[in-house]
């Protein structure tokens, strides 16, 4: 992969914080002796204007194509270097940083020469990683077509209003022909919002009257394909059942949640005991009922205390309307004493004036509904009370609704049963456009009132408008570190789409009938666990590839001493904790060499295997705390990969503990230190790895096995999916799965080693020779040999009655 780019290394004194502690002169000389580094510079402060000038001058004069800055935290400073050095033509990905201050100078009690040794190893590793970089061209995102707002939720109108105010064309995909119909049905999703209807109608009329808005009446959403800037949306027409295809540059989904009545629970009968929606319906049709009305905020009893606030607001709003329109109605609101009355001071005053009574009840005793009465326990008097009613109004049951779930699935979300659509996939970039976050609006995200739904619609439209304006100005570029699919390698198995947590991977119709995938760069978060899982290495995280990480770890591993360990730290967990250990000046064992990685899930098992193949005695992976992963399941996925390497290390005759998975919170640098020190102590106990020919041959086998498509497939199939709530550690048939997995690995391990051996030999080999060379039992080999013959990988020739095998 070496493409002989000129690499420049810039050492930073950081005032007094690096220079006297690390012998930078010795380090400079050491770096200059090796061919991998074309230029070594040294700056008192490389990040300040004078230092940056110095680097820029050197980059221009020396024609440097990659730069390593050995100074401080990449998490903080890399952006500045990228921005400043951008004018010299260096792009994101072509600059790397080594944290000399925080990972070497501030944290070890070593002599300046020893510090320089450690620094050199880390810098060589960074340089090797940059050497393996294949920079991708900057990709401009084309934007074609209007913005499509689909889903039919009420936020459609606020989103459309925002777009037309920003002069952006949009299509409204709705269910009804006239907006007045929607207004009439509004109370089904947002009861008690009557005071808002006039304004709502004004918004609707503004949208309906605009020339920028096209209203289409469509049926069920069938598919959404394409990528940001160029989507194809297909609906099934309700009239003739034929597909209707529309093109859109961006899609906003406005989805309203569903309100159901309480069924037979809480005395609900649909006549005297009703729910909010039914009460609203009644007010619409027959007017405000007279007599004693009791609202019971029963969300605590229904198991959803989080909805009580919203239900109480609705009740208040309806109660107010009733009192204002019917003086004969007496309204009481009965609420759990654990919840505060959700009114402002002005509303409380108004409530008193209108004679609306709020009565708290003790939640420990469940109120009981009887004909004409509701019994509850007074929390102050601790006595049971009765309240008479003519109409009892309960909170509704809220759910996402089947239709909405279907639409969400088409949009690439994975709604969990009974859960609202708001997912918190951790953000990694502020401008990141997770579909659920930026482009989803309405009460299907989470239960909310009309005002909030409309606000969400406006916000989604604003986000979309930002992109549209950027695209129209020709300034919309895809982020540089996103996944790309090599369509020639992709077999369309769909594994990546299944484990992708950002919904960025889409199928495309390919030649020959198979369906390769492509990635929407505006949605991809660059997590990279999909790339690490691809059985065929068809997915690459561009500008941050597995090849780079392999080169980096190999370079480091080759230079490590027998008791030193390679560690990978994720930028959100392990690395951040290590940086903070440096800031705090905590001292720890210097035998740990930390490499930076975006997410621990980016680490392909081949990177782990490469570390051992090139001489690392141990590998430690430090991610985020469990369930805190910024890329959803990076840590879980890595666990499965580490498990694979452990099994293979066992097969190689090495201790399984030479690879370990750890986690550290960024605010707990001590966690990182404990993990690192514990690991190097363990390595010291285990002793060095003998690098004899047999071990080397086996380690090569380990490397080949993790690149074997079949092993990678089974590994990938076992990874946690985004819709799985917790890691299935208590998986069913755990033992038998593990056993089958082990059988598979052992089989492939033997297979790749035999292939390797035959590749080296010019002569066909007999079973005995193979068995002796690999030091494996003949019985282990014979089945795999037979299989490989039948698969056509090797040929079998009989000479003198004995089978001879050779590579085809």
């Amino acid at each position, binding site marked *: 992969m070496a493409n002989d780019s000129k690499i420049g290394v810039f050492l930073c004194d950081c*005032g*007094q914080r690096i220079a006297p502690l690390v012998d930078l002169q010795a380090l400079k000389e050491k770096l200059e002796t090796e061919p991998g580094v074309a230029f070594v510079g040294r700056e*008192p*402060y490389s*990040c*300040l*204007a*004078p*230092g940056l*000038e110095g680097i820029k001058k050197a980059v221009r004069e020396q024609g440097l194509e990659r730069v390593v800055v050995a100074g401080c*935290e990449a*998490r*903080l*400073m890399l*952006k*500045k270097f990228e921005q400043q050095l951008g004018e010299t033509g260096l792009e994101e990905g072509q600059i790397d940083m080594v944290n000399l201050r925080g990972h070497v100078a501030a944290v070890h009690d070593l002599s300046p020469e020893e510090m320089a040794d450690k620094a050199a190893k880390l810098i060589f590793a960074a340089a090797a990683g940059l050497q393996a970089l294949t920079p991708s061209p900057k990709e401009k995102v084309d934007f074609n077509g209007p913005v499509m707002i689909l889903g039919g939720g009420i936020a459609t109108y606020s989103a459309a209003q925002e777009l037309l105010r920003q002069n952006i064309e949009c299509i409204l995909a709705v269910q009804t022909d006239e907006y007045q119909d929607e207004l009439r049905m509004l109370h089904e999703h947002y009861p008690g919002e009557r005071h808002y209807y006039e304004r709502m109608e004004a918004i609707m009329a503004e949208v309906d009257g605009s020339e920028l808005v096209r209203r289409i009446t469509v049926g069920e959403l069938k598919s959404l394909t394409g990528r940001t800037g160029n989507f194809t949306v297909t609906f099934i027409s309700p009239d003739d059942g034929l597909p209707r295809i529309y093109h859109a540059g961006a899609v906003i989904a406005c989805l309203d949640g569903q309100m159901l009545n309480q069924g037979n629970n809480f005395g609900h009968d649909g006549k005297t005991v009703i729910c909010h929606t039914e009460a609203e319906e009644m007010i619409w049709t027959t007017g405000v009922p007279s007599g004693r009305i009791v609202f019971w905020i029963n969300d605590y009893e229904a198991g959803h*205390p*989080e*909805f*009580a*606030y*919203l239900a109480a607001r609705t009740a208040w709003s309806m109660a107010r309307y009733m009192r204002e329109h019917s003086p004969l109605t007496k309204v009481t609101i009965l609420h759990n004493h654990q919840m505060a009355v959700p009114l402002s001071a002005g509303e409380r005053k108004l409530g008193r004036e209108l004679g609306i009574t709020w009565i708290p009840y003790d939640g420990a005793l469940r109120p009981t509904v009887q004909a004409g009465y509701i019994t509850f326990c007074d929390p102050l008097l601790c006595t049971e009370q009765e309240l008479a009613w003519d109409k009892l109004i309960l909170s509704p049951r809220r759910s996402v609704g089947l239709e909405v779930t279907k639409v969400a699935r088409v949009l690439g979300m994975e709604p969990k049963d009974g859960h*609202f659509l*708001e997912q*918190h996939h*951790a*953000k*990694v*970039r*502020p*401008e990141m456009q997770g579909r659920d976050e930026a482009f989803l609006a309405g009460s299907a995200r*989470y*239960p*909310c009132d009309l005002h*909030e739904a409309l606000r969400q619609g406006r916000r989604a439209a604003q986000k979309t408008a930002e992109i549209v304006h950027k695209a129209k100005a020709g300034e919309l570029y895809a982020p540089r570190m996103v996944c790309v699919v090599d369509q020639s390698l992709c077999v369309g198995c769909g594994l990546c789409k299944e484990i992708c947590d950002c919904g960025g991977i889409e199928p495309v119709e390919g030649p020959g009938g198979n369906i390769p995938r492509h990635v929407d760069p505006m949605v991809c978060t660059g997590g990279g666990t999909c790339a690490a899982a691809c059985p065929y290495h068809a997915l690459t995280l561009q500008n941050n590839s597995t090849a780079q990480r392999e080169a980096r770890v190999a370079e480091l591993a080759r230079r490590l001493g027998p008791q030193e360990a390679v560690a990978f730290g994720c*930028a*959100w967990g392990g690395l*951040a904790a290590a*940086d*903070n250990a440096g*800031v*705090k000046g905590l001292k720890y064992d210097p035998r740990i060499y930390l490499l930076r990685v975006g997410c621990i899930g980016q680490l392909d098992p081949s990177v782990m295997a490469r570390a051992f193949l090139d001489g690392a005695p141990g590998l430690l992976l430090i991610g985020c705390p469990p369930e*805190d992963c*910024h890329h959803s399941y990076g840590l879980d996925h890595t666990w499965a990969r580490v498990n694979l390497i452990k099994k293979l290390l066992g097969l190689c005759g090495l201790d399984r503990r030479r690879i370990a998975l750890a986690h550290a919170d*960024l*605010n707990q640098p001590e966690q990182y230190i404990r993990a690192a020190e514990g690991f190097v102590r363990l390595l010291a106990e285990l002793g060095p790895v003998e690098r004899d020919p047999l071990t080397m041959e086996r380690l090569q086998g380990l490397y080949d096995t993790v690149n074997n498509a079949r092993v990678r497939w089974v590994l990938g199939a076992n990874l946690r999916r985004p819709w799985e709530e917790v890691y299935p550690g208590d998986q069913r048939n755990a033992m038998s799965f593990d056993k089958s997995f082990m059988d598979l690995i052992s089989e492939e391990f033997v297979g790749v080693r035999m292939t390797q051996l035959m590749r080296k030999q010019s002569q066909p080999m007999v079973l005995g020779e193979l068995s002796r060379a690999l030091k494996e039992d003949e019985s282990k080999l014979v089945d795999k040999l037979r299989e490989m013959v039948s698969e056509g990988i090797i040929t079998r020739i009989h000479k003198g009655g004995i089978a001879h095998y050779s590579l085809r």
Partner: protein
Amino acid sequence: MVSFKINGQAVQAEPGWTVLETARHHGIHIPTLCYHEAVEASGACRLCVVEVKQGDWSKIVISCMYPVAEGIEILTESERVKNVRRWILEMLLAECPGSKDIRELAAQYGVNSTRFTPHHPDEQCILCGLCVRVCKEVVGVNAISTVGRGVHKKIGSPYMEPSEACVACGSCVTVCPTGAMRARIDAVRGEPKVQLAPQAK
């Protein structure tokens, strides 16, 4: 190129560089708290004061934002400068008695006690706003800001509630000059991150 003197040493700088940058480039130490290379200088802590002499007048300026000029003379450790720094450190001691870093820094200048009424004994934050600037300029999310005014001013997310904008990157913790952010980040990033209905509290 602009030529001038720092502590009597002749130095050269490009127009647009600041005094602090030029001094550091030439190995002259000026203490700072609110300054970080990753963000724009804001001049909040005033600890980087230096004395600028031009002709027969001189004045105290903050070196992190003062641009270089031809012929000026900078004194980084003059008695006048030290006096101002001692004042600042004395005020900082009262502002955040809980910070070990500030106590050590003050001790270097011979400041071991303060004549001002100390704040809460555990207070560590000097309100330099570095975390706020990092959140805005480096991370780009604006999850934290200064909340309140005057003596009630503090650092946090809006309404001091866990922020949805926070990406939990920990940049604020790494840049914090006194370690005060370590105790605050959990209130900003929120535990746990998942909430079903944000308005139901």
